[in-house]
């Protein structure tokens, strides 16, 4: 499987990283190099093997469904690049 320039553009967009058109060929080539390296995995017989989800066979912890923390709006907004009236502010999302 080789990544074309168009696919590189698509991946960059899915990853929400702006890439200039002029940089797409180099990006596609780099991604192809890495994918080629990964293709060694095709040599392994994985028939009947369950994909590993965690290293320790443990059940995810459960807890009471109750509020244990909160009331710290100012702390949460403190690092926002733009916060107004108690909200995170972003550019217009819907026309």
């Amino acid at each position, binding site marked *: *499987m080789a*990544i074309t320039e168009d696919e*590189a553009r698509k*991946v*960059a*967009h*899915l*990853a*929400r*990283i*702006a*890439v200039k058109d002029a940089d797409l060929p180099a*990006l596609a080539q*780099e*991604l192809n*190099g*890495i*994918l080629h*390296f*990964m*293709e*060694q*995995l*095709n*040599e*392994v017989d*994985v028939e009947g*093997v*369950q*994909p*590993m*989800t*965690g*290293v*320790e066979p*443990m059940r*995810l*912890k459960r*807890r009471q469904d109750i509020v244990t923390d909160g009331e*710290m709006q100012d*702390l*949460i907004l*403190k*690092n*926002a*690049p*733009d916060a107004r009236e108690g909200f*995170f502010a*972003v*550019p*217009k*999302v819907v026309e």
Partner: protein
Amino acid sequence: MSDLNKLTIAAARDGLRKGDFTSAELTETCLVAIEAAGALNAWCHKTPEKAREMAAAADKRIAAGDAPAMCGIPLGIKDLFCTRDVPSQAASRILDGFLPQYESTVTQNLWDAGAVMLGKLSMDEFAMGSSNESACYGPVVNPWKVDDRQLTPGGSSGGSAAAVAADLCLAATGTDTGGSIRQPAAFTGTVGLKPTYGRVSRWGVIAFASSLDQAGPMTKTVRDAAIMLGAMASVDAKDSTSAERAVPDYEAALTGDIRGRRIGIPREYRMEGMSDEIDALWHKAAEMLRDAGAEVVDITLPHTKYALPAYYVIAPAEASSNLARYDGVRYGRRARLGAGDGVVEMYEKTRAEGFGPEVQRRVMIGTYVLSAGFYDAYYNRARKVRALIKRDFDQVFADGIDAILTPATPSAAFGLGEMSGKDPVEMYLNDVFTVTVNLAGLPGISVPVGLDRQGLPLGMQLIGRPWDEGGLLNLAQSLESAAGFTAKPSRWW
């Protein structure tokens, strides 16, 4: 008392308790050493005032007579740990100006034990790298130097390794996703321990690959690693993968008796093109353990070869999800926007200027392997191979092997800039001996064992059974004392 910064944790603890010196004095010698070591570029945010306050508080506790082992010990903290009101930016431009309003569990545990924070240590951006060259603060320089070249301290915990090796702190925290504690420890002649996955809380540690990340101590000796791990580890309700296991006394496990322990030597780790020096040192280390009473056994871990490609699918996949949060909305940096730019342009520009090239590459690879149509071919296949890699280890442990001995790295420290411009995959090969351990969730430790012909340190890795950090540390200490590694970098900075 000018050399207090050169002490180990164990020696400083004993000296503090005896009243030979105070934490204030000890801390001051570290602060002086740090100021004189600007050329190493190890520290990215220094906190001298905080350090002095914490040292004064520690001295009071010590005087009161019930201080824990880490009380008054000055430490460096990797920039990946969130520390309240102290910059914590994973060496990335995208977290410029971020001041966490909370404290990571690991650092909180250390402060509760009375440890002193000297500042934050540089690293590869988001812990993605093996040379520390991707830090937004510029590369860290290895204190070891044998010619005109400046060498890498390794990565990603390169700032931590350099600071410990140069005696700028008594010990430091590191994190290890594919070798990021053990490789820099090997490159700097220090000890680095990656605990079993789930032993140390990940809460408040900026996430790279959540199923692989684990924090651990970077120290001057194995005993110090045992002491510091005891203070870092805890059962934490804030991390759902934190294991419900009491933290044992790791220092008490250092009995010096390793008779009858069975050490496996995996044949698959004898890589093609491996330097004869590393091969010879590997043999020598096995001899040392045998002389101490251990039984050395050849073993096979047949899927070793596939660990690196599996890792470089799984880690970027998890990273692409974890790093989705850096979007210029809640914290860190937001790109300057043009007229008419909407929210998507804001995300794309923010991430393009905030992430460095290696982080961008991994996020995009991760996005690709998780995208519709490729999920099964790459991501699921890699997770199946991961299961086989873990099964290899399960089998040798079931056969009675207590620990596995391998080299820590395929080479000694290389020069800064030597890998730039090369294929990214070549840099990934640095992790060849260490990634298997993260994939299987096992504890692993790097111990300095000798110097190569150039005079640079080389490390050996011991891999333990899950949750057997105590037994692993005991073996590591036996290797450490047999090797008698006492070399230190001579000061040029």
